[in-house]
């Protein structure tokens, strides 16, 4: 079922070696979904039933030692598993995916937070995310029935779980480092957007970063400043 969910027709099957990271991530996720969650502490402690039903079986009989364990998932849980995979990709860990599916009340906080990080502050293109889909996803997430409704897939070409792409598997970590890098350039950008090109240029000259997005802005500001300065000098020369 996972292959049907994730692999477009004619692409390589999930069992291929290069998808090892994705397989491990998905296995962890499925296990988290299929195990009971303990909620609360002390006397209020309650065990919640697993979100999906899964049966495990290992082939018995002679010659079967060490053979792979087969996991059987109920096809009725397809939408829920899909949503869990999307949420895992977005928020990084299965625990949060499970929490979001279980607790409607928790969703608001995460949606707000994701909106701030992904949409208000960042260029999502740099992270391989599709903006439109992400907006729909965050809008729906708050009150969607995650057992029935499939959320849209916001990832442009690779799942973060695959460990490929610009984020090397950890979207949150990349986001955090990008945010940190951008704060280096914050004063530069603030000056730029306030129309204070000279100050923006001064800051841009100090910026040292590996962040591609910031480098692009830095070069843009430097070029723009130099052009404007050259124009001023030409005007003065022609006076």
């Amino acid at each position, binding site marked *: 079922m996972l292959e049907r969910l994730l692999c477009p027709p004619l692409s390589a099957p999930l069992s291929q070696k290069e998808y090892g990271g994705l397989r491990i991530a998905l296995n962890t996720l499925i296990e988290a979904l299929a195990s009971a969650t303990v909620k609360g502490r002390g006397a209020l402690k309650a065990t919640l039933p697993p979100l999906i039903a899964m049966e495990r079986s290992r082939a018995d009989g002679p010659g079967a030692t060490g053979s792979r364990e087969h996991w059987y998932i109920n096809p009725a849980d397809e939408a829920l598993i899909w949503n869990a995979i999307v949420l895992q990709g977005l928020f990084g860990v299965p625990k949060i995916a499970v929490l979001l599916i279980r607790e409607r009340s928790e969703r608001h906080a995460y949606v707000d937070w994701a909106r701030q990080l992904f949409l208000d502050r960042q260029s999502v293109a740099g992270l391989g995310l599709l903006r439109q889909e992400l907006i729909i996803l965050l809008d729906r997430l708050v009150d969607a029935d995650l057992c029935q409704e499939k959320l849209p897939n916001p990832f442009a070409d690779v799942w973060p779980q695959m460990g490929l792409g610009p984020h090397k598997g950890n979207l949150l970590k990349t986001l955090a480092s990008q945010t940190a890098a951008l704060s280096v350039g914050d004063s530069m950008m603030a000056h730029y957007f306030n129309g204070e090109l000279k100050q923006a240029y001064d800051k841009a000259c100090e910026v040292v970063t590996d962040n591609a997005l910031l480098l692009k802005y830095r070069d843009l500001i430097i070029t723009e400043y130099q052009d404007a300065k050259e*124009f001023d000098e030409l005007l003065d020369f022609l006076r």
Partner: protein
Amino acid sequence: MKPITLPIACLLASLCVPVAQANDDPEHLIQSCQELVGIYTKRDQQHLLAGLTTSSSEALRAGYCRGVLDEYRRTSFCAQRDWHMQAAHIADYPAFSEEQPSVETLLKQSCAF
């Protein structure tokens, strides 16, 4: 050869000779000088502002006005010593008025104090 063919041949030959033709469009000159004055106003208003807010076509127009003024001042007498004042004079002229003076008249008038 018939007598008529000679004038026709002369006419055809004269059409092929390239003639240096100045642009004689007063409207174009007025607009260009307006751009020129505008750009210098921005220059004096704020450092870097002119470079940020001037488009390529505005800059080209302004350059055209400046070139026309330079060339006129090189070949004709102009009592107005400051080309910027002269440009301002031309820029003040309504660009879309009914009766427009020729470019030559415009330039001559703008040279007067």
